[in-house]
């Protein structure tokens, strides 16, 4: 269980959702995550760049059926930061109820 820590990089709605998806899978493909988050390619790329620069995610290019696809996964640093951020959100949500 991670100690609650607010993470400004993760907190933006798109990036929070991207991290949430990646935390529940081994890997997810760019288009699948983009559609689930409901953003454009460019917005998605911007979010991924910020997460990658923070060392939170890793990107892997792979060819399938003659087409290049990008697979995303959460790095261990990103998993820890995401868990800590969710713990903080839960703490804040609980305190606002109390």
């Amino acid at each position, binding site marked *: 269980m991670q100690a609650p820590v607010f993470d400004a990089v993760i907190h933006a709605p798109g990036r929070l959702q991207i991290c949430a998806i990646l935390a529940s899978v081994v890997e997810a493909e760019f288009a699948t995550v983009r559609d689930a988050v409901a953003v*454009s390619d460019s917005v998605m790329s911007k979010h991924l760049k910020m997460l990658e620069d923070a060392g939170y995610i890793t990107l892997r290019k792979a060819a399938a059926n003659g087409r290049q696809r990008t697979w995303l996964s959460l790095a261990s640093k990103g998993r820890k930061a995401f868990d800590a951020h*969710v713990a903080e959100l839960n703490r804040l949500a609980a305190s606002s109820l109390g």
Partner: protein
Amino acid sequence: MTEVEDNTSPAEALASINKARAAAADGFSRHTWRYDLTYSALASGIVASQALHSPLNIVFVSVCTIGLSVLAQKWSEKHGVKVTGLTPRGGRWIAIGLGIIFLGLAFAAFTAVERLHMRWIPLALGAVAFGVALIGSRMWRTSYRREMGLDV
């Protein structure tokens, strides 16, 4: 879409997490007989192949094992999501249980042929493995969908 919605409450942020997870997992985790039957046939093939003489049994086990790997890979590529049987917390024990049962059935089938020379037993155990795999596969998927907040 705005970069940061600062007015998002913690509860709304947590809800958005669940919504995104569900959206990403939906296609991947839908019940499909095609996948489940193929998976069950390959799993039962590993057990039933013990009825064959060596080295055919080894060849058949290898083919079925590679088939399971290819099936999982194709499924991941089709839906853009890769998980292992152990990824979801709820379904983890179903996957571990299936693995233990398959190993037990394969060992029993191997022993029946080697010690008792009863080649029909692996076929019967293969049929059992098919049923267990089919039920287990659907249970795992149901558990995963429930964990992702999707209709089962």
